[in-house]
């Protein structure tokens, strides 16, 4: 217990609390530059300070609080919320090495790798476990500061530690090539009135396009709602795919950033958004650099006003993929999901009506509006509309992003797109929608992977992250891994999720004994959590009891 030292007799040298050290204040000012400081850029400032000093020292945080005229506690809340910030590290000179332990990497023995690296690299790196890094087709993944080592082994990580080469930019279709191929003409024709808004909205509706971040909300309907709300309005692009097993948006942005950006500008035009924010996960630094190179070309071409598009980095928080948590994060705060109502379309970023769209949804706009909405809609299978990208990982021969008809079945995806099961593995189960979409047995692998089609089995397709499990996988261990993930990523705001995920992870050590209690807890979490994280966190537990009772022991 903390006790007062010589209570009441300690001489006070300063006013109460920490004092700002002039040297620290200078250091912070130097890193942040001369621009007036903005509250909403707090996370960016923390990034910059950490990039410079390899951690966030309390001396600098004290100075930052004074400089921004914010309570120290407010700075600390934010800095401590995000996994990628390190406050007062013991050894800031050492690189931070994060080993992804989320399910696809766990299947690739990430836990063993973590243990090995901890043993071998103590004194050379700060080795930590990490959450899904969006490279699940190349598991296991290790991050060394902002570099990502895929298909990592102790050997490859050690080598990478020594040669500090920056990752090359992805081989994307750059601005010139994109324009040469007819890019941005659709946007221009909309802006000059050749494609009237009503027509665009009708086409969008006919295409059946739905939000491909996971919620599946009809896109045309969302646009109409935002457009009809009083201005000023904002647009936010959700590029924070954190759902374990999901890496499609990274693929889109890495290959065809301008197709996404044209969709962004088109949507912003459609709803009359004054400003666009692209919220990019911090795990994709190569995309951040790519966008930093490509956006100026777009602005120079007059396609977007200077300062009209801001790219914001996350800092390691799954919950910020939840749209309202993302808005909080863009405002420079902790990613705590907001209560609904009000919906973000009515009261979103900075309290204004906001259109939030996932990268992939925006990607498809040009396809739909150029090639025809009906044609796009007809590409779907089993009653679903259009194409979508499924992120396939786990026990398949060729994991990766698979552009396939929406509504395709898991079996088809595995067999026809992913090269079948991996060598020596027999198909046994699958997660249709990443960590939160529940787990289904092989016998249900012919169901269409579409919004709503898995409801009766307690599952959903969400962001289209198909994680394939085999006869060699223990479903209890899988469930524990998922629950540990949710416990780690819960924002901590509401009781059912904050305490529930932690207690559920604990109870899952003895799933047989705790079945009744876990079922009751699952019910309460689903009914009473504020956001989708807590509501969906028990899904794998329910699946475990429903489909995989053999694995309980």
């Amino acid at each position, binding site marked *: 217990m903390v006790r007062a030292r010589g209570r009441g007799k300690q001489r006070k040298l300063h006013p*109460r609390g920490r004092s700002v050290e002039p040297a620290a204040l200078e250091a912070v000012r130097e890193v942040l530059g001369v621009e007036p400081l903005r509250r909403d850029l707090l996370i960016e400032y923390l990034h910059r300070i950490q990039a410079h000093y390899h951690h966030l020292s309390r001396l600098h945080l004290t100075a930052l609080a004074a400089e921004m005229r914010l309570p120290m506690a407010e700075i600390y809340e934010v800095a401590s919320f995000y996994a990628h910030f390190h406050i007062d590290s013991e050894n800031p000179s050492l690189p931070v090495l994060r080993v992804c332990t989320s399910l696809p990497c766990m299947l690739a023995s990430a836990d063993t790798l973590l243990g090995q690296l901890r043993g071998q690299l103590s004194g050379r790196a700060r080795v930590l476990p990490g959450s899904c890094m969006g490279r699940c087709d190349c598991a296991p993944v290790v991050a060394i500061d902002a570099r990502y080592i895929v298909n990592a082994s102790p050997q490859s990580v050690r080598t990478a530690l020594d040669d500090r080469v920056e990752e090359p930019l992805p081989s994307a279709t750059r601005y010139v090539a994109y324009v040469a191929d007819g890019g941005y003409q659709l946007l221009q024709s909309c802006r000059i009135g050749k494609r009237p808004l009503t027509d665009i909205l009708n086409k969008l509706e006919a295409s059946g396009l739905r939000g491909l971040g996971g919620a599946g909300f009809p896109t045309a309907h969302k646009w109409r709602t935002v457009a009809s709300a009083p201005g000023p309005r904002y647009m936010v692009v959700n590029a924070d795919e954190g759902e374990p097993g999901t890496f499609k948006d990274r693929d889109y942005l890495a290959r065809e950033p301008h197709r996404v950006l044209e969709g962004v500008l088109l949507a912003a035009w459609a709803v009359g958004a004054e400003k666009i924010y692209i919220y990019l996960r911090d795990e994709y630094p190569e995309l951040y650099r790519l966008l930093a190179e490509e956006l100026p070309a777009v602005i120079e071409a007059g396609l977007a006003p200077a300062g009209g598009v801001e790219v914001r980095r996350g800092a390691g928080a799954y919950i910020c993929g939840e749209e309202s948590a993302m808005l909080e994060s863009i405002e420079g705060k902790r990613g705590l999901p907001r209560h609904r109502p009000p919906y973000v379309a009515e009261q979103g970023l900075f309290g204004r009506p906001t259109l939030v769209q996932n990268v992939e949804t925006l990607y498809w706009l040009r396809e739909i509006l150029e090639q025809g909405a009906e044609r796009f809609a007809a590409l779907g299978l089993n009653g679903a509309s259009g194409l979508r990208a499924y992120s396939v990982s786990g026990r398949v021969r060729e994991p990766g992003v698979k552009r396939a008809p929406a509504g395709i079945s898991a079996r088809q995806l595995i067999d026809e797109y992913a090269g079948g099961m991996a060598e020596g593995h027999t198909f046994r189960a699958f997660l249709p929608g990443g960590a939160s979409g529940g787990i289904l047995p092989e016998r249900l692998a012919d169901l269409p992977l579409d919004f709503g089609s898995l409801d009766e089995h307690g599952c959903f397709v969400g962001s289209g992250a198909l994680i394939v499990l085999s006869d060699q996988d223990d479903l209890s261990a899988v469930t524990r891994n998922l629950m540990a993930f949710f416990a780690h990523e819960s924002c901590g705001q509401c009781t059912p999720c904050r305490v529930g995920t932690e207690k559920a992870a604990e109870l899952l050590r003895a799933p047989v004994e705790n079945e009744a209690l876990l079922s009751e807890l699952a019910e309460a979490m689903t009914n009473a959590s504020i956001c989708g994280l807590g509501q969906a966190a028990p899904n794998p537990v329910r699946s475990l009891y429903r489909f995989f009772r053999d694995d309980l022991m």
Partner: protein
Amino acid sequence: MNGPVSFFLDDREVTATPGESLWDVARREGTEIPHLCHTPKPGYRPDGNCRACMVEVEGERVLAAACIRQPQAGMRVSTGSPRVECARRTVFELLLADQPPRTQAHRLDTSFVHWCDHLGVSESPYPARKPPEPDRSHPAVAWFPDACIQCQLCVRACREVQHNDVIGMAYRGGNTRVIFDLDDRLAESTCVACGECVQACPTGALMESARVNRMGEGLPPAEKRVPSICPYCGVGCQLDFLVDDERIVAVEGRDGPSNHNRLCVKGRFGFDYIHHPQRLTRPLIRRDDAPKAGSGTVDPADPSSHFREASWEEALDVAANGFKKIRERDGGEALAGFGSAKGSNEEAYLVQKLVRTGFGTHNVDHCTRLCHASSVAALFEGIGSGAVTAPFTTCAESDVIIVTGSNTSANHPVAATFLKQAAVRGATLIVIDPRGVDLVAYAEHRLLFQPGSDVALLNAMLHVIIEEDLYDHAFVANRTEGFEELRTHIQPYRPETMAPICGIEAETIRRVARIYAGAKAAVIFWGMGISQHVHGTDNVRCLIALATICGQVGRPGTGLHPLRGQNNVQGASDAGLIPMFLPDYQSVEDAATRARYEQAWGVKLPAKRGLTVVEIIDAACGGRIKGLYVMGENPAMSDPDLNHARASLARLEHLVVQDLFLTETAFHADVVLPAAAWPEKEGTVTNTNRQVQMGRPAVAPPGEVRQDWWIVQQLARRLGLDWDYQGPADVYREMSSLMASLKHISWERLQREDSVTYPCPGPDEPGHEVVFWDRFPTASGRARLVPVDIIPPDELPDEKYPMVLITGRLLEHWHTGAMTRRSRALDAIEPEAAVSLAPADLARLELNAGDRVRVSTRRGTIQIPARADPRVPEGSLFIPFCYVEAAANLLTNPVLDPYGKIPEFKFCAAQVEDGS
């Protein structure tokens, strides 16, 4: 939602008014919905995080938190469906799993315990986490994270209600936890111990340290609570004294008009002085073998070296006979009395009546002379009334707020919370102060000007407003007089000319002047940084001119508000504890007024005004004043140039001191009369907002201690007056019959309503918060504009004394420290005197923080440790005057403002040397 909405609550049709949540409606309809993170108290935003108040809305996929959900027409809400029951029970079981066992609970009367019992949740099926360690580093507040349920009420308390900005909710998931500043120990954080978080905590995770034992186990809940008023500053917070076994064990805020449940560290933790072992419990008479000396000290714990105990009969006889002898020998003019702004209105009234009718003199004053006398003088001259024109809560309707010469968050902490709240809402806060007071964190404009250059700065602002034609022409034409003289006078005071004098750039002066003049509603607050100067009255004249030429008086959100210091300084002044005024500021030199009081009191009154506090001390030194009656004042600490003041007190032939403790003043007394403390008394007090409020006794006085009103009456009778008051109610009836300000505010009404603002238009109507909407109470009905010139401070720095000494107060200590230094928690937080210097000055003097230094002025020298404080401007020193062991007033300059007769506590030339 614009109008009322009908919906169904448990199948019953109910109506919600706009803004009501489902929880609000349910509560109004008598349906109790469990809640932990929600409180309906003012200022607390619903947060909906604990999920205890879940309800089922028909047709919705998931449950809704009632506290944060607005009803919609036709909505069907169930507060007890099976889904609701399951969720609610699970929430409580999850939280209970990690709570300490009830036998070791830090507090038992919590809302968490209440709801667990209500729901029948006595144990949890969930595994417990490893309990985190407590933090008991802080003298007043203990932190037990094992009981924390992360409900964020403390965060809201700290950041959104009190705006002290210490508590945060850091990390995430199961690691989510309360932190202080940068995860610092509470004692090392910026916590000001307002205790709002303790009051808000639903589990006993944040506790008054004194309410838990060493093991962290909570003491039994208090037996009773007594509604009363805080005994410290002029904010006048309403509170409950929690009493157990005739001891006050805790204090909680009440929803009074000036505090809305909020308190500060003094109000919440500074109540135990009344139980201090040094409390006087029997009358004392000076021993014949103990001669008086100005430098003499007495051990307050053992006065027997200088005093002997006496019966009340003997002590009162000796006290009264001493006065009688002088009155008969030298006349009433040789006597004087100091009343107290710490007593009730009734006591203040009785003291001035005793001095005027029993002593036969107007030599009666009190500590208002030392705080706002210049403000009152200027306000009387300018707008005909010394009281505030609007309560400080009017800032909720201001778009511009000026705070000058006030360290509000230290000296009027709860008022500061309202100012900060207004700034957060969007009002432009302008802080004008030589010191970087804590409030600057909320200020859009910070004018840290040269000490003593107030007039230069304020005149420059007036210059801008007049020259740029920004003033309110209609208001100036219809409501003021003397504008043309002011216009002519102000011409040379260009900001460019004044900038080098006041140290503020001309452009900043212009900008701030324009903001103030252009405001829809602007209010000015000031404290002793304005008043305690030789030019204190001039400073206030400038503020009055600013407000009146801009028409910023008489409407909500506007006004002139001197933040009054003592809890009853307004009331004591109103009651006539002033040498020039009978009650309600009626001049003693006005024959008609005298006649009215002579008739009421049946005694002839002198026609000449009396002496003020410092003049009385001077007269005692000169031998003109021979007998002095001091009730609850401590001039031996509070007056300037204490060596002189103490020598003067020692020279008195007869000094009677009536107090709780053997104060530094009582060292020199002939008779010491032990008096009741505020929490032992019944009576009314009037706060800075003109709110007359009812105080009630929580405990009985110890030993033979008597009520002040009784003591005064006993003295009066022995001086030949036929007083026969049965208690404070009788006194109040008499004074309210004579005082127009108390019209329609009866004792019974105050008993009923606790607080009524004066002036009050009717017995059942609320008082007028904002006054002077159509005329000022001056002879012409207009505000008088008084042009002023720059008068430099009396004693400017020179080669020998190169620095400027500023004195003042600390958050934790009240006035001369008689009460707060005897409060365990308060003295533990600030146990030691210190002189604060700018870090650069320390470096220049080759000193380190913590070093002992010698601070000297032309009047004296003290030894005191140094503190590095970047808020102090370079070239200045700040010393609080509450520490007897390093009394700042040994150093201060006794020169007076010519109008208010207030000493220049805020400026004298000083020297700092290494004292080791």
